[in-house]
């Protein structure tokens, strides 16, 4: 026999020896058993029949039909006596009463606490959302305030990328012929030439709106020039060797 088997057998033997101990019975009141039997033989609360409820005439309502067809349904009614305790003196327990399910015996108060977890979580989530919303609105308001304080400046003709970065410039493009304007992102400069944005470039300082941008047609109407600027930060780029774009009437100046 292996050690594990002998260990199990030993545990089973101990289990049997422990189980052979008999719980004390002398603490129970011997007269209570007779009282219990007497209580069990007495009248029991029964669900009220239709006749007992005094509804012997007339058609049954929908709820009464449901209750009459399902005796264990939620609509089950139990006869309630005036005393409520079958002739015993009313309960005066100062700590309150324990409500138990008549089917499973579980404590009703505990079930109630279990269900209340959802509203509590909902309230907490709503409160958190409200706080976040207030923070967001505050941040947005401060941004708008900062934006309104920014003054748009005239852009020099020979602006370099270093200057643009130092002066917190933003670049935008106004499409030739279409009139569409949008602020350029760094991703725009990674695009190949054939799909890179083309048009009249606008530059402005510290703003998110194309409408606020000052244009400089001489220096920023060429896409290749801007690519060179952004790929060689700080380098001097001579705009004279770049092809001059065709003048377009649709790309109006904002300066």
């Amino acid at each position: 026999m292996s050690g594990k088997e002998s260990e199990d057998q030993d545990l089973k033997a101990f289990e049997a020896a422990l189980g052979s101990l008999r719980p004390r019975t002398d603490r129970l009141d011997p007269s209570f058993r007779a009282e219990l039997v007497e209580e069990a033989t007495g009248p029991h609360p029964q669900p009220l029949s239709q006749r007992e409820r005094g509804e012997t005439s007339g058609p049954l309502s929908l709820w009464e039909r449901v209750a009459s067809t399902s005796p264990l349904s939620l609509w089950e009614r139990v006869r309630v006596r005036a005393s409520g305790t079958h002739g015993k003196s009313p309960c005066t327990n100062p700590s309150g009463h324990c409500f138990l399910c008549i089917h499973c015996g579980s404590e009703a108060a505990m079930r109630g606490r279990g269900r209340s977890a959802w509203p509590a979580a909902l309230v907490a989530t709503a409160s958190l959302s409200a706080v976040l919303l207030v923070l967001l609105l505050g941040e947005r308001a401060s941004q708008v305030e900062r934006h309104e304080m920014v003054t748009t400046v005239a852009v020099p003709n020979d602006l370099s990328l270093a200057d643009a970065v130092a002066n917190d410039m933003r670049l935008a493009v106004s499409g030739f012929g279409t009139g569409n304007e949008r602020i350029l992102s760094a991703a725009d400069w990674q695009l190949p030439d054939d799909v890179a944005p083309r048009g009249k470039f606008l530059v402005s300082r510290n703003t998110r709106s194309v409408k606020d941008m000052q244009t400089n047609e001489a220096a920023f109407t060429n896409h290749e020039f801007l690519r060179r600027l952004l790929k060689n930060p700080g380098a001097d780029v001579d705009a004279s060797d770049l092809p001059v774009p065709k003048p377009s009437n649709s790309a109006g100046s904002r300066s």
Partner: protein
Amino acid sequence: MSTLGPDAITRLWDGHSASLVLYAQQWCDAPEDVVQEAFLLLVRQAMAPQNPVGWLYRVVRNQAINASRSRGRRSRREDAVAAGGQPWFEMSEDDRLDAAAATAALRDLPIQEREAIVARLWGGLKFDEIAGLSGTSPSTAYRSYQRGLSTLRERLGWKCLEKKAKTRT
């Protein structure tokens, strides 16, 4: 489903009242009152529960925990003194384990292990029923039972007793 008759109530009382007292004793020091109250509640039910034994254990557990809370607020010290020396089992010469020692060892176990052992050994409940009472899984109830049993065996020196008995024979 109908109410339980006197015979059924008598059978339940004779078969489970002592075990229920022992079960309630794991939480409170007036287990007899709790058990009697549970039986009265059972008798007064308009509809008999599907599993009266399980129902009784659940009600006794809830009532015992409630009683221990309210009593604990009043006087913890008096309770501790009163609960000190009373053994939980009947003393008998035939038993292979000492009732007082078993009571002391059982009392020192964590409540989860104690509850599982009492409900299983003396209540005859299945592990899924124990799990339903204690709000755990059946495997957790089984592990608590096994762990508590092993601890009890060590504390009561069971191996030594068995070896002594073998050497005598």
